């Protein structure tokens, strides 16, 4: 059993943003997806990979749409006090975001950061980041954290999946980092022809080093990664997604059946508070 369990940082008033965030840019970076850079010192300072923010996707005095939208922190610049989100415009809230001008100044109400973080690997580990869709966002910040914190360059392999090559979100940013990038597309338009989890399984099998795996993607991808991890006993952490109302632990709207320890009973645990990062062995099989 791996020693690490993703930790929930205890939130304190000092660890949350109290001011709105200011838009630096809101750039379209691919078909339907965008990078939003925001300026707010606390979020930029304290956010760690895996954590997310809750964004109000309506004007200040409007309550429609009502609920905030959760987005993983994609990147931070702690010195400049900025942080980035990578998002796809899929519905009302994300389309509202996409309509923000791509110029500095707009104020956006953002609360956070919330949730727990990925836990660090050891220096010997061969690290795999397995992501699909916007799930690559927390993996990017994690890769940057690992590359910045290690004296010896860590061995990191990114496995990124998408339907087509056009939908490989953020791949260019990953390619600028010192890591191995492997891609899988459903239509074979780039890289491995098939699922990203199949690609990962093949690469991992050939690897002679102890593995550490971190995943984040759509539910289907998370589920196949969980199954591979459990079957082959790879120490794996998965960042899960769920519908949320509050995002900070009070409503119990975001629960999933999750164990407290490997082999233990399932409890309805809050993905926003005890998660969103969980050891793969704790997740319920077959939730897609």
């Amino acid at each position: 059993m791996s020693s690490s369990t993703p930790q929930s940082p205890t939130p304190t008033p000092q660890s949350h943003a109290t001011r709105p965030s200011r838009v630096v840019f809101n750039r379209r970076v691919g078909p339907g997806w965008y990078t939003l850079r925001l300026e707010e010192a606390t979020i930029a300072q304290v956010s760690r990979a895996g954590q997310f923010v809750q964004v109000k996707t309506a004007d200040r005095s409007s309550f429609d749409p009502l609920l905030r939208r959760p987005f993983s922190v994609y990147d931070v610049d702690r010195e400049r006090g900025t942080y980035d989100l990578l998002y796809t415009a899929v519905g009302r809230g994300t389309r509202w975001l996409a309509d923000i001008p791509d110029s500095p100044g707009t104020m956006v109400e953002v609360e956070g950061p919330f949730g727990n973080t990925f836990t660090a690997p050891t220096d010997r580990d061969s690290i795999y980041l397995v992501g699909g869709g916007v799930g690559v966002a927390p993996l990017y910040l994690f890769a940057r954290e690992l590359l910045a914190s290690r004296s010896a360059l860590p061995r990191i392999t990114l496995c990124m999946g998408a339907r087509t090559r056009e939908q490989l979100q953020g791949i260019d940013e990953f390619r600028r980092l010192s890591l191995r990038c492997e891609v899988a597309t459903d239509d074979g338009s780039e890289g491995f022809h098939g699922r990203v989890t199949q690609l990962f399984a093949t690469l991992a099998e050939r690897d002679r080093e102890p593995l550490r795996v971190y995943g984040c993607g759509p539910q289907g991808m998370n589920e196949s990664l969980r199954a591979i991890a459990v079957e082959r006993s790879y120490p794996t952490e998965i960042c899960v997604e769920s519908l949320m109302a509050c995002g900070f632990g009070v409503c119990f709207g975001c629960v999933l059946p999750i164990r407290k320890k490997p082999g233990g009973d399932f409890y309805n645990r809050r993905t926003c508070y005890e998660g969103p990062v969980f050891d793969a062995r704790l997740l319920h099989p077959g939730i897609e």
Partner: protein
Amino acid sequence: MTTPTEVHSPPTERQSPLATRLGPLRLRNPLLSASGCFGYGEEMGAFVDPGVYGAIVGKSISRLPRNGNPIPRVCETASGMLNSIGLQNPGMDAFISNYLPRMRHYDTVVVVNIVGDSIDEYVQMAERLDREPGVGAIELNISCPNCAVGGMEFGIDPQATETLVRKVRDCFRGPIFAKLTPNVTDIVPVAKAAEAGGADVLSLINTFVGMSVDWRKRRPRLGGVTGGLSGPAIKPLALRLVWLASRACRIPIVGIGGIMNADDVLEFLVAGASAVQLGTAHFVEPRSVPRILEALEQAVQDEGLDNISDLVGTLKTDKKPITIQGDG
């Protein structure tokens, strides 16, 4: 054992323009948290000091732990949301040993909301809470739309409501809030029944039962199929029920439903509520309460009032509507 007066005297700033009387309780201000939207205070502590609230109401506690309803449990609707949480809670024993000790230290009145499957269960829980220091009041959830056998049955039947409240009254010495459901044809008989049974305060209202459908998948959007509607969408409906009940009952009313800002609070007070609870607002703006308190103080000053309670029940309705001829 503490005497009721010790237990039920909240810290009150004398002369404060927001100081509020709620039946036997004296509150710092008229803003309470609504059950299920504030946890037991711990997580919210990252944003606000529970001590700024007039009182805090915890999530419903049942005698035994409950796992709650299947997922998905929340779904957004036009200016509102549906929830089907199903009263997931740690149960009375764990509440008393793990949560209540911390809540006692909050510098405000702690209201413990309880839910049961039978009168016996409510009575057992009330007896237990009567012995616990730090319980400022109990709120009887007889109105949850999300439980098959749960409280709703009581809340739709005036006779059952009166019996339940009276039995609890016999074993609990502190203030009792009866939280009613809006899912009835006429709320007045149920409100009067709760008053007759000995309730000190009426909490109006719990969520409206509703549903949402994903037509492409031919599936309901909630795991529990139906759920409770909350948020700004229900405010006009809640206001009407508060107004109706306040005219029919003598005991004070806590207005609940879609309150997001100071104007919403004042609308409820004018309609007849003595205080209000905020629920869904916490999800959207976790610091709503301190922000609203500032605006309320300003409003009281602007209106030239001594105290905010001067507004309670000041709604003017035309006694003589103008009648016109015609078929329109």
